[in-house]
């Protein structure tokens, strides 16, 4: 048992290292953006661990000028997908100890969800727990360290570095793979145009709601 759990931990590390490298640019941009809006490094690092979701974290930093409630609503709407992930992954937590059922989900993000759902050797509760804690813990450690590094390096960047363009580019990089079909493309175009044409926080909220409503309307029309 001990040997096999060690093998599981090693597999988790092997799987996680390239994933951690792939999200490092987003973490650096978040850290640099936080420094630019005046969030102290320890506070942003703590926020990175607590939120542990790049798009939502970036949403808070980039929409705060439109108001705290707008920033909170935007981040909440982005992270609402975690409800679906937790529903999908619930069977893996069903026979786990109580502490793990309450604390383990803190490591649930797109990447950890995709990592465990791609493996078919985690049916045993102890094995799943070992893999989840190793993969999620390593990913969170790398994430927080890289956000903090971005916070430290951010103030050293020249004024001309277009951090707002970097933030938009990161968001586009996350959005583009999701909009290869007509329906999500219509959702995205609606949300983008509404947010761009309406003022500040109102545009953001109207864009999110309008995009989601168009998506549901297209679902009904297609069925």
């Amino acid at each position, binding site marked *: 048992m001990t040997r096999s759990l060690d093998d599981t931990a090693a597999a988790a590390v092997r799987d996680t290292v390239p994933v951690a490298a792939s999200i490092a640019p987003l973490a650096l941009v978040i850290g640099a953006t936080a420094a630019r809006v005046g969030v102290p490094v320890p506070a942003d690092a703590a926020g990175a661990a607590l939120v542990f979701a790049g798009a939502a974290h970036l949403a808070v930093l980039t929409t705060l000028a439109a108001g705290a409630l707008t920033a909170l609503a935007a981040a909440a709407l982005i992270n609402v997908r975690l409800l679906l992930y937790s529903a999908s992954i619930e069977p893996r937590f069903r026979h786990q100890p109580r502490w793990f059922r309450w604390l383990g989900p803190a490591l649930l993000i797109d990447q950890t969800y995709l990592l465990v759902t791609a493996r078919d050797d985690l049916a045993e509760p102890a094995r799943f727990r070992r893999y989840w804690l190793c993969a999620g813990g390593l990913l969170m450690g790398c994430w927080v360290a890289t956000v903090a590094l971005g916070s430290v390096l951010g103030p050293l960047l020249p004024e001309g570095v277009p951090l707002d363009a970097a933030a938009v580019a990161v968001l586009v990089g996350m959005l583009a793979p999701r909009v290869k079909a007509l329906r999500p493309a219509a959702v995205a175009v609606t949300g983008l145009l509404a947010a761009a044409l309406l003022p500040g926080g109102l545009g953001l909220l109207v864009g999110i709601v309008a995009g989601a409503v168009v998506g*549901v309307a297209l679902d009904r029309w297609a069925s």
Partner: protein
Amino acid sequence: MSTAVVVLLAVGVLSWLFRVAAITLLPATRLPPSVRRLLDHAVPAALAAMVGAGIAGGAALPDLASRLPVLAGAVVTAVLAWRVRGIVLPVMAGLAAAWVLGVL
């Protein structure tokens, strides 16, 4: 404590509730299909709205000339992100395009 830190704390608590809700509190599999579809669409809608707000720079009917570098960076990133796997190359190319246009 700054507003940004308070909001980050609130988002952290809310995110943990989302994460734990369907595992420990309320099975989300019991949600009606229409609500689940709305949640599905909320993610691309939210990302796209943030892109739109970012391109506009927080103002209505923005001065397009001043936002052209951001727009160009977004377009370059989108085109590459559709064609290659991973986020690093598209973002770096988009950022480079925005930087070059900003300098010109």
